[in-house]
Structure formats: C-alpha cells, structure tokens
C-alpha cells in the first residue's frame, strides 16, 4: 500500500494498515543508526522546521536527529524568542515558514487541535509532536514499535496504561493505535484522573493497579504532569506513589517478562521506583533509540506523499 497523507496529526485518523506501514518502514530505518556513517540521502535538500510552543528536549532532539540522519536541513524555532512573543498568530507563523520554502513543520503546541488547524492552512507537511491533551502520535508509534519488537506482536496483548490519563496525549494516541492493532487496553489511574467517557475509545478502566498488573503483558507508565495541576485533581505525590507507583514488590506479582515503558522524563519515586526504571523489565532507553527510527519513517513517508500529491495537481 502507498502512503497518501501529507501530514501526521494523530493515530485516530490512520487505518491499521497505515500504522503497520509506518512500523515496517521504521524497522528498515533502524539499521541506519547502527552504521558508522549514520546518514542516508533520502531527504537531501529538504528543510524541516521544529516549531515548539512548549518546552521539550527529548522529542525535539529526537526529531532533529531523525531529520539529520535523512540528510534534511533542520531549523529550530523556540517560540519564547520568536515573533510569537510579538503576537503573531499560529497560521501566520506557519505561512511564513511555508514562504521560506520549508518542506515539513514539526510542531508541539499546548492547544489540542493546533496541528490539525495548521495542516489545513498549509500545503507543506505538518507532523504533530504533541498538541495539548489531544495526541502525540510519534510517541505512541515508538511505544508500539518497541512492544512489537519485544513481544513479537500487538494483537491480543494486554497493555496497561497507568497514571495521569486525563492530561495525557500519549495515552490517547496509544489507545487509538493499540486498539486499532487489536490489543486490549486497560487504563489505570485514580478516579479523578480518568476522564468521563474514555471507555468509548474501547479501553477498559480500573483504579486497582495490582489487579491490572496481574494480567498485563506490558505496562506503559505515564508521567504525572504536575505542571498542569490546577489544584484539584492531583493526589499528593507520596500518596500517589503508595497507591499507583510501580515498585519491585508490585512487579513481583506481575508476569515475569512484563514490559515496562515510560515516555520520559521520569519522576523517580513518583510514577515508578528507580529499581524498576533501571531494572530488567524496563525498555525505557530502547524506546528512545526506537524513537529515531519511527520519526525517520514518518518524515520520509509524509514527504513522499506530499510530492505524490503535488505531482498529481500539476
């Protein structure tokens, strides 16, 4: 099958086949990062712009590394020091970047739906690097890629997503991707952090971490986003660790080979103990490595699609 979308906005909008195509392409790209010369000429002469309205180190750097390994030129715009501070709108910023003849905008924004809006306004590709509480598609893709690599398949797996579901775009993208590929997803969090109606996505919910862990083939532990705390929903940090934190004692009652994931950055001693984060079940650093391959695949595919489309219009 061919990739037709100029943008990657969320996993909600992709078919299972499109998700599989990204994962398969990423598998081929993984080899590039093991070479002595870690670079291929596929996006030579293309320009990718990192446009980040929220602080991010790992996602921005991961995209930058991915684009550079494809030989694209990368420009980073930190909005704190840009015209955004002078009141420029998102669409105007996007159109200016398009007028510079950039090819791909990789955007992180604090408003849900910002990437969709920008993609509609522009002819160039938009890759969503996280928008508000909506989606973070490349994070979910790299989580799913890592799971598939570790366990050989996705269909039929029991995957637990634990933590701050309410504020998490990582959770939403994972729910879409995992359910589309046939996994059983259980969301586990204090009730205050489980949004009303989230079951409509096909995921189950629970507030009993020990029960959930017993059945899980993998557990994706989310970061508690205390910076988004508005003073009501969040439990005390120590209380949360006691009731939901992933510790060696809790893990001892889970399946022996349960895969432990975390999108980073970790709050050690809040979501999980240091022993678990650095333990034998943890694949946290492999997720980071796989993130490069997945983002290379995404950048390659969207740039291919856009050209196919332009050719069609001509």
């Amino acid at each position, binding site marked *: 099958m061919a990739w037709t979308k100029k943008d990657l906005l969320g996993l909600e909008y992709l078919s299972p086949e499109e998700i599989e195509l990204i994962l*398969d392409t990423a598998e*081929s790209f993984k080899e*590039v990062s093991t*070479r*002595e010369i870690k670079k*291929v000429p*596929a996006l030579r002469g293309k320009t990718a712009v990192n446009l980040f309205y929220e602080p991010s180190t790992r996602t921005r750097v991961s995209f930058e590394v991915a684009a550079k390994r494809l030989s694209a030129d990368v420009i980073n715009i930190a909005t704190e020091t840009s015209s955004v501070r002078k009141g420029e709108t998102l669409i105007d910023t996007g159109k200016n970047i398009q007028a510079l003849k950039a090819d791909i905008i990789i955007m992180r924004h604090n408003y849900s739906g910002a990437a969709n809006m920008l993609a509609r306004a522009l002819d160039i590709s938009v890759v969503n690097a996280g928008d508000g509480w909506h989606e973070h598609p490349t994070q979910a893709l790299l989580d799913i890629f890592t799971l598939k690599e570790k366990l050989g398949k996705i269909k039929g797996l029991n995957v637990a997503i634990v933590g701050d579901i309410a504020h998490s775009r990582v959770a939403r993208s994972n729910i879409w991707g995992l359910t589309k590929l046939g996994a059983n997803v259980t969301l586990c969090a204090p009730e205050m952090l489980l949004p009303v109606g989230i079951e409509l996505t096909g995921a189950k919910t629970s507030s009993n971490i020990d029960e959930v862990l017993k059945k899980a083939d993998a557990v994706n532990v989310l970061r508690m986003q205390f910076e988004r705390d508005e003073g009501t929903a969040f439990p005390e940090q120590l209380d949360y660790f006691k009731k939901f934190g992933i510790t060696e004692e809790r893990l001892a009652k889970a399946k022996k080979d349960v895969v432990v994931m975390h999108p980073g950055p970790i709050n050690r001693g809040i979501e999980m103990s240091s022993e678990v984060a650095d333990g034998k079940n943890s694949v946290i650093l492999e997720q980071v490595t796989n993130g490069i391959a997945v983002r290379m695949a995404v950048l*390659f595919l969207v740039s291919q699609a856009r*050209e196919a489309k332009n*050719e069609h219009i001509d």
Partner: protein
Amino acid sequence: MKEKAKILDQEGISRAITRIAHEIIEKNKGTAGLCVIGIRNRGVYIAQRIAECIKKIEGKEIETGALDITLYRDDLALASGQPRVRKTEIDFDINEKNLVLVDDVLYTGRTIRAALDALIDLGRPRSIQLAVLVDRGHRELPIRADFVGKNIPTSNKESVEVCLQESDGSEEVLIAERQ
C-alpha cells in the same frame, strides 16, 4: 503487459548462474576476501544462488548480504509508484573486501549508481564488481557489468521480467510489450 518471448527457462537460469559463479572465482583467483551482495528484491535471491554455486565449486562458504537502495534513488522526488523502504542486511565488515554486487536486470544503470553510493556509505571495499542475470542495454550512466548471464537486445517499449521461485513462484525470464 503482453508476453512476447521466453528468453530463459529454469535450466537456462541455473546454467547462467553456474557460469557466473565460475567466472567470479576465475577473475578473483579463488574466494579470499570475496563476498556477494544482492540488491533487493530479486538480486538477493540470485546472490544467494551464486554463493551456493561458489560453495559447491570451491568448498568454501562466502559471506552474502542484502542491500536496499530506496533511500539512494535519484528519482525519489518523482517516483510515481511509492517505493517501499526495506532492510539492508549486511552483517559483516565490507572494508578491504572484494564485493560482487548482484541484480536481476541491468537497464539504465541508475539502480547500480544508487547501490554504489549505498555501499560506500558502509565502508571502503577493495573492489566492487557487478553481476547481473540479464543485461538489456539502454544505459543512461557509464556503468557496465563484469558478469552477465544473458545479453538481451530490447526496445524501450519492452519490459524484461525475471521470475524466481523465491519471489514469484516460477523460474523464467520473459520479454513483454508495455501497454
């Protein structure tokens, strides 16, 4: 596609590959430092068969690899059918080796140009030689094969189809008219 003529059958393909294997050994004076790398997809199967022949003749195992050239294509920007990126699998050091690059059909030479760039990103071999099952002419770049299974004069309106058991379930080389 309208089939016009069968150029090689199963025995023909097998004899051509055997002869190429003999020529490779002769030219390289044995198998020291020798390895074969096939270009995806069908070049990989031909490369494996060449390696098997060489093993039968010389009694020595030689290293084989698979090269995907998609990311090095010069027509990525205009490729009408979207090429699928596949894995490059070369699990050995190519530095100072005598590499035999293998493909099914040699036509414009652009695939081979891409393959040479891809290989040189992986290291500095002592030499790179080229073996193809079919050379159909119409080169657009200054590239020639060292070992050729069969030379087939064709017109640009024709296409050459190589069918192998591993990928196509049959063993033959056909010329067809493009429609």
